[in-house]
């Protein structure tokens, strides 16, 4: 089934403008919506006939990831094509696992971007089954790892978590003690407790866990 409606959700003016112009010249009913909160975007597009949505994953500071739009869009009957300038495989895998039809990188030429869009709008396969299942597997694996780390981090008390976050930010234990107005010995004791609770042997390993937990999801 060929979609005639193409929605562009991208915070970059030049891209969304040229995409809309190029798609219109190819006979599509293309439009873009202002990037705002997910709920606002969904309200904005409620009047349109569902078709193909070109979705950027990173919609700028202070706005949720574009991936949050995948599920509601798909449930409204839209087909979603991720157009991303990011190299974050995890975010991409998540979007695909949530139901995006495929993805295209902004580093590809504009012609290729258009070609993939046209294919996706025409309902043709833009992501091979193998590539899709690879991404879904990647997402599941990272997700499981993420959950496992979160579970371990949840064992920490508020203060322990604060101390660990400071350490991960490269603050030395002595400076942490000063910041919280406690003794260095207390901070050391808290660090030991953190290591025990996280089941790791060194501060480096503990910090690596926090950093891993922070990778965008």
């Amino acid at each position: 089934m060929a979609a005639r409606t193409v929605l562009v959700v991208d915070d970059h003016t030049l891209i969304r403008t040229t995409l809309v112009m190029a798609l219109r010249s190819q006979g599509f009913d293309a439009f873009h919506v202002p990037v705002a909160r997910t709920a606002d975007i969904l309200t904005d597009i409620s009047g349109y006939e569902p078709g193909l949505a070109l979705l950027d994953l990173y919609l700028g500071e202070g706005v949720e990831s574009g991936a949050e739009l995948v599920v509601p869009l798909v449930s409204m009957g839209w087909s979603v094509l991720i157009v991303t300038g990011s190299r974050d495989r995890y975010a991409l895998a998540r979007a695909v696992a949530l139901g995006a039809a495929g993805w295209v990188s902004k580093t590809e030429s504009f012609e290729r971007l258009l070609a993939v869009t046209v294919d996706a709008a025409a309902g043709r396969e833009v992501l091979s089954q193998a590539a899709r299942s690879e991404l879904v597997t990647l997402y599941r694996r990272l997700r499981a790892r993420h959950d496992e780390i979160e579970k371990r981090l949840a064992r920490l008390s508020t203060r322990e978590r604060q101390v660990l976050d400071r350490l991960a930010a490269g603050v030395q234990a002595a400076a942490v003690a000063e910041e919280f107005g406690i003794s260095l010995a207390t901070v050391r004791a808290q660090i030991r407790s953190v290591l025990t609770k996280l089941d790791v042997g060194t501060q480096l390993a503990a910090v690596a866990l926090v950093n891993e937990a922070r990778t965008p999801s």
Partner: protein
Amino acid sequence: MHHFVLPRARWVVVRPRAVFAESGVFAVALVLLWWQGDRLDHMWQTAAGEVFTLLALVSACVATAAAIVARMIPRSMDETDRRLAGPLAFYGVIMIPASVFDLPNRLEPAVAVGGFVASSLFLVLMIWALCPELYLGLRWPTAVVLAVLVTVVAGVVAHVVPFSGNEEGPTLATIAVVVGWFIVAAAFVVVGGKRHQSVTWRVGFGLTVVALAHVDNLALRPELSQPDLDFAALRLLGLLLVLTALARPALRAMREARDHAELLIAAEHRARQLASEVAERNHEIRNLVSGLSGVTHVLGERTPLGSAVQAELERVRYLLGHAASQDGVVHLEPLLTRLVALHRARGTAIELQVAEGLRTVMPAAELAQVVTNLLVNCERHAAGALVRIRAGAHGDGVWIEVSDDGPGYTPNGHRGIGLRVCTRLLAEYGGTLGIGSDDSGRGCVALLHLPGATGWAAEAV
């Protein structure tokens, strides 16, 4: 909230005054024990045996702790200190505990011989620790196990073989062991002083105190019926000296490792920040390139300038780390035409002469990079000169010649980096670059040889 700030634990650092105070305390304790130690035996008339056993067990713990601490000293610091783990473990885990068992009289010879052998082996292990060049392919646990085995065998032999002449008072063997203790202790002090290793000579002092304890006792095995408390106390003091000597470098190493980890984390944090800044910047540039690419598309790629901009954007994409061109075969004519249009727009006079149907397997982005570098070189070193680009086939390959009628090529000129990049890019795809002056000595000539696209490869696309 309570704000109680404890003084930072700095005692690990060796400070002259602290060392002085510490040595003073030990010296006073030593003198008191040596001089008035016998009074200890009268203090606990009834419980002397228990007190002795207690002191012996504490000594065993201290010796064992010293052995463990010795292993915590990093390998990079001093092999001697690490090797002390062997004799100290033997002393703390085997020798002292064995000495407080009340054994039946008929085992007397076995115990005496076993004690002598064990003491001798302990001293041998100490010497082994002191001389790192004595490797002998021995690891300290093996050394301890061997020592235990030899001791047991000696004890068993002494038990089985009849023993004659049970003398009263110190035997020759006892005296030999005590003298051995002093020699080893002195060796540690002297060698430590010579090598400027404070740990080693401190250990030597500790050993000297233990040796003094043995002089006081002059028996390899104390009589539990008549326990010598000042011997036990002196031995404990000596072992404490050894433990504190070894604990210093071990604790310092631990602290350094922890501080190092903190520095490492800080460095990693900065690196992550930097990486995320770069990623964000690249993300923005990719978006910009994508947008500009869209603009040229919408404006129409038919114009030569449009396609020239397109080629430049392709190059930026390539620099951002994405080999966009996976086309396999590149047609020279359109690519060179685009590049020439771009440089003509900058004001360079370029003549282009390309044979028809030339194809290469070198990717467009890389080839564009090479030709651009050559053109930029011409613009920089032969400003205003007429640039001529010619391309043709040569056997299976393709050649491109970029020449100008400027001042000519000087090998020492500042053309280095750009040309090196060209050579590297070309080499990656089996191409070569030759550069020199015109036959007439005027102008610079760069000649590229590229692998051509064979018939079947061209068909496949």
